[in-house]
């Protein structure tokens, strides 16, 4: 008997199916069983979802965690170190990752924040709808397509070399939608009364936005930026196409090769020699650690500084 049958029968024979045998909370056997089953399934689903998380973190920590405890890991590059030799560090890749992420943020944050301000504070009508729609497209753009696009412009059209800056251009495309959407959410949380109070005092609109609205939503905007940074740091596809790896420290965005953690992993991922394998997992552990720290920082900022209303 399905639940529907039970209810149908209950409506036909109200006296028979509602005998007070089991007290107030009595439920018929099959229904109670299904309820229990559903409860078990939900708990099992959550447990299943935790398996890959724990498994991945466990693999990365056991295989690469030890590398992080060596101080050379944080101070040396891989320059002159072959696959057979233990040693060297990841500082070149860490620096490259941070430089590219910061350069991306420098471009993406102003564009993203201003776009969000436009959407929330100014945008009405067709243009705003179009902007919102394009941000949606940008959200869904696969990173490899963004990379191909920059390749089409940077290398095919202009004939430039593949350098770190080209990578950051591709990453900007991926970071803008994250910043726009999170900033928009935060600006919407700012109570309208604050704006109106400001207008009532004769403050012009732009100053209201710059001095009242944005500061109120500031911590939320920072959270969005940090989460966006976390996303672009882990991106690998643009790096494969636009940012060749090198073993030495290189900090010039506009010339030469630029190593990053994802390309460092990619470089040696097919290696079988133990020192190289260890370094691959060490780089993976470092990358996850950096991204986790950014995520935690983002959450802390948003929890500590929710819009003061």
């Amino acid at each position, binding site marked *: 008997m399905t639940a529907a049958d039970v209810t149908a029968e209950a409506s036909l024979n109200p006296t028979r199916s509602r005998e007070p045998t089991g007290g107030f909370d009595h439920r018929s056997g099959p229904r109670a069983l*299904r309820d229990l089953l559903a409860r078990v399934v*939900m708990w099992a689903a959550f447990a299943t979802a935790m398996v890959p998380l724990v498994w991945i973190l466990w693999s990365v920590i056991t295989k690469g965690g030890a590398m992080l405890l060596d101080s050379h890991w944080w101070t040396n590059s891989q320059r002159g170190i072959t696959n057979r030799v233990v040693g060297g560090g990841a500082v070149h890749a860490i620096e490259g990752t941070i430089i590219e992420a910061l350069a991306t943020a420098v471009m993406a944050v102003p*564009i993203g924040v201003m776009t969000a301000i436009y959407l929330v504070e100014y945008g009405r009508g067709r243009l705003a709808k*179009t902007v919102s729609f394009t941000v949606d497209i940008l959200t869904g753009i696969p990173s490899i397509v963004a990379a191909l696009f920059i390749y*089409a412009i940077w290398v095919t059209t202009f004939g430039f070399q593949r350098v770190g800056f080209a990578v950051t251009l591709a990453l900007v*495309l991926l970071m803008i939608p994250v910043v726009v959407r999170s900033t928009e959410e935060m600006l919407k949380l700012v109570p309208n009364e604050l704006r*109106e109070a400001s*207008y009532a005092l004769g403050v012009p609109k732009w100053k209201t936005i710059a001095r009242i609205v944005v500061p109120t939503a500031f911590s939320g905007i920072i959270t969005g930026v940090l989460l966006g940074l976390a996303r672009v740091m882990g991106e*690998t596809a643009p790096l494969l196409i636009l940012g060749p790896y090198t073993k030495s420290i290189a900090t010039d965005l506009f010339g030469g090769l630029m190593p990053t953690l994802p390309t460092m992993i990619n470089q040696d991922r097919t290696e079988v020699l133990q020192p190289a394998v260890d370094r691959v997992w060490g780089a993976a552990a470092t990358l996850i650690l950096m991204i986790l720290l950014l995520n935690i920082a983002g959450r802390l900022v948003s929890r500590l500084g929710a819009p003061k209303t």
Partner: protein
Amino acid sequence: MPTITGVSSVDELRDPEGHGPLQGDRASTGRLGDRLFSGTAQGASILVIAIVTLVGVFLLSQAIPALAKDKVNFLTSTQWNVDGKLLQFGIANLLWVTVLSSAIAMVVAVPLGVAVALFITQYAPRWLSRPAASLVDLLAAVPSIVYGLWGLQVLGTHMDGIQSFLVKLFGWIPLFEDAGIGAASTILTVGVVLSIMVLPIVTALSREVFAQTPTTNMEAALALGATRWEMIRTAVLPFGKPGVISASMLGLGRALGETVAVTVILSALASNTAWSWSVFNGGETFASKIANNAAEFDSPQKAGAFMAAGLVLFGLTFVVNAVARVVIERRKAFVE
């Protein structure tokens, strides 16, 4: 409204006088500061539109010359010869592998994601529900190359048993025939890894719509004597269905476009390999094809062939995301 749905304030309902939300001030004074500031904001927005338009235009402009020289049917051919003078390339293989791996991912991730979302919103004790949500979100923080590395070197070593079991049981179906590829590098392994990657997306959005179920509906179901599961079936799931659909679509968009994890795991086949429907086959998706050959973009026509593949991928994800958005829009009309 959740960020992940891509719902923007411009889409929200207008008040009776026809003003949008947060409007009604008309405080722009036409002063220099105001004009500069609104101009900058508008400029940034137009820049975003320009970028997206350029993506389409550039990919098209590079792909069309190559497509014009293509000697075989672009959609149905399985060949990919772009090295010589004679251009022969088609996407049938790429399309099949892309769709199959994403389909596997969705089959696993959607039911699991919905169940996890129900767990977080309906079943978890209060102290657990927030940490549980953060833990599932953590899955989204793992970089895709780490997923690839883990999928190939850790998960892959455990796929042998599953593969031989499925081959023994269902080997007579073309979908499950043995294709002679190591169990770590099959489409099935990729599908499983992709399902883990899209799980946080499906869960996050489903969770948000389930949490918005009107309490009155839920209480009404419980008051009529429904068990908790019956309440979920009659109140929460119908309410959340459009949200779940668009969550799945966003997840699908992610799975279709995932590059590096697929590139690392899936073993590319030699160009003359016979066609196989099997999930135990290797192959390449659109994204991994492009990534695998990134070093070879030396001539415009060669690059053009890959741009054409990228363009198809762009189109696919665009359609999927557009469907997600339409579904969410219609839900809004239903809710309000």
